[in-house]
């Protein structure tokens, strides 16, 4: 029995559909991310689970209890808001204590729990400060402590890291995961940042236009994107058009100047397809030693990697090479490009109807 279950959850604003037929099951202790560009309905979905937005149709179940129409203040969920929404007129300790106070917990026990929660986020020393005296990262931790102190069945995170600068964001990302592992709270996070979603979630729900287009573990979402837009939204991808010349267990695709084998099965002869291959899967060789040749048009130094743009007979390809100490290729250099067969994916050339996708 799943812990949090969304069945055919739909949200209409007037006649516009913000979320359509969303199905999602979250197991106890799981960390699930809703990932998608802005306006894809991910925040609306979270708001419906939280009880701040009414569900137009469908149902939300928590631990076997139907909470579809329960009031927000009876659900008892822990929520971290994008703006943190700390109470500015209360100290850090009072902020964290508020939820316990509402549960009528005796004062002594309350202050003990507040202390533990602040220790969890390493803020014991700032208990008597006011929110405006804290940095962004510290406010974020207070918000997390406030949501966790009530020991909620589910923790909802609404873009929790988007207001932090890049360095802090990365730190908090792992911190967040560490804390979540420690307390074991079932967590649903909304984010538009694919690296954030992949690095800390057990499963990722990719959303587009109000629908979940793929629900999978981060590795599968990255390596086996179901649609063209997922393959380009989650990481970068080189997309090459071609048509299937031989179907079966393996598929042979004609890309124009060359024919390649792909592991994916189930494509019929003559189907128009897109071959997707990630830039870091492409390997640069001596000219003539790869599957095709190309000329380095541009190169960018990214620190740990080199990003090359290579002109080939199949079009422009992005290639990411690790900066492993070997000298980089100059612009204008002729190079061969190769890739392992198992690193390529076939996608139907036309986007499939979004509604046909079933949750994994």
């Amino acid at each position, binding site marked *: 029995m799943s812990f949090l279950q969304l069945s055919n959850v739909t949200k209409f604003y007037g006649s516009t559909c913000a979320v359509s037929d969303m199905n999602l099951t979250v197991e106890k202790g799981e960390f699930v991310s809703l990932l998608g560009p802005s306006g894809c309905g991910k925040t609306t979905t979270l708001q419906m689970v*939280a*009880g*701040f937005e009414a569900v137009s149709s469908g149902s939300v179940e928590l631990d076997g209890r139907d909470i579809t129409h329960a*009031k*927000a*203040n*009876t*659900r*008892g*969920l*822990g*929520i971290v*808001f*994008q*703006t*943190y*929404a*700390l*109470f*500015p*007129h*209360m*100290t850090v300790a009072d902020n964290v204590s*508020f*939820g316990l106070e*509402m*549960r009528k917990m005796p004062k002594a026990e309350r202050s003990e729990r507040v202390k533990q929660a602040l220790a969890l986020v390493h803020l014991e020393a700032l208990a008597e400060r*006011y929110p*405006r005296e804290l940095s962004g990262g510290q406010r974020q931790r207070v918000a997390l402590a*406030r*949501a966790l102190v*009530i020991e909620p069945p589910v923790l909802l995170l609404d873009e929790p890291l988007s207001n932090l600068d890049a360095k802090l964001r990365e730190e908090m990302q792992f911190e967040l995961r560490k804390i979540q592992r420690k307390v074991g709270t079932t967590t649903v996070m909304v984010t538009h940042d694919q690296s954030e979603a992949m690095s800390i979630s057990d499963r990722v729900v990719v959303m587009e236009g109000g629908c979940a287009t793929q629900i999978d573990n981060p590795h599968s979402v990255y390596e086996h994107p179901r649609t063209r837009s997922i393959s380009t939204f989650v990481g970068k991808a080189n997309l090459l058009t071609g048509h299937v010349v031989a179907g079966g267990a393996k598929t042979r695709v004609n890309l124009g100047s060359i024919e390649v084998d792909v592991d994916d099965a189930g494509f019929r002869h003559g189907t128009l397809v897109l071959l997707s291959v990630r830039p870091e899967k492409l390997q640069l060789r001596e000219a003539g030693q790869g599957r095709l040749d190309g000329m380095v048009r541009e190169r960018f130094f990214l620190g740990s990697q080199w990003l090359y743009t290579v002109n080939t007979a199949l079009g422009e390809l992005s290639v990411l090479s690790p900066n492993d100490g070997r000298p980089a290729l100059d612009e204008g250099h002729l190079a061969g490009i190769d890739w392992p067969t198992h690193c390529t994916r076939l996608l139907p050339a036309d986007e499939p109807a979004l509604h046909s996708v079933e949750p994994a």
Partner: protein
Amino acid sequence: MSASKATPWWLSGPALVLFTALLLVPLLLTTVLSFNAYDPATGVKAGEFTLEHYAHVFTDDYYYGIFWRTFWISGLVTLICVAVGAPEAYILSRMGKPWRSILLLVVLAPLLVSVVVRAFGWSMLLGPEGLVNSGLKLVGLRPVRMLYTEVAVVVALAHVMLPFMVIPVWTSLQKLDPGVENAALSLRASPFTTLRRIVLPQVLPGILSGSLIVFGLSASAFAIPGLLGGRRLKMVATVVYDEYLHELNWPLGAAIALTLLVANLVVMLSYNRLVEGRYKKSLG
């Protein structure tokens, strides 16, 4: 460098001139006037100074009564404005698109009509043959005397002053993070507790400045008590008017006016001190 040093003075110059000419100079002249000796036969004696007028104000029960009435009416009007204006601003801020602007305009509309016109409007409503009394007669009740009583003054002042409460509260509500109410709800607070513990403390600065404006303006209001209080129900501003234009005792009028100014300042500053201390630390 010297030019950039002078720039702030040039920029604030027009405002300074206006402020000095229209406020400081008249205030100073009034102060001087309040110490001038006065002879009922010959009028103000320039160059001859006395404390007689202040002594007169501070020893006569008649003036105590008027000051007391002025301040309790202003206090009551302030209370009514807080009780009506703060919830009104909150409800307005939660309203949907077209209604919010329309109703905000309705709240502010009284400011567009002259106080005198509004006072006459109220006297028509509250008079012996007015709409309210006609209504009472219609349902078989005895008519009530309202015009030329404190009731009329309080009701009309509250109506005039309401926008001055709604606007500052509205402004502080705009600064409220919309997430905080949801945050409180998610922590199991009831909507009422959310309002009391989360929203109210954050709009306190708005309520404070609103009540200072309302109290100050009410205590020095002239047209409303003049027109709705009648000849017998006097407030300080109407007494000052009488001294100047009926008794022609300008120095006594000036002394009363300055006493009102100082008393008003004392009340407002101590109120400000009292309330501000409660949120100064947290809200900055």
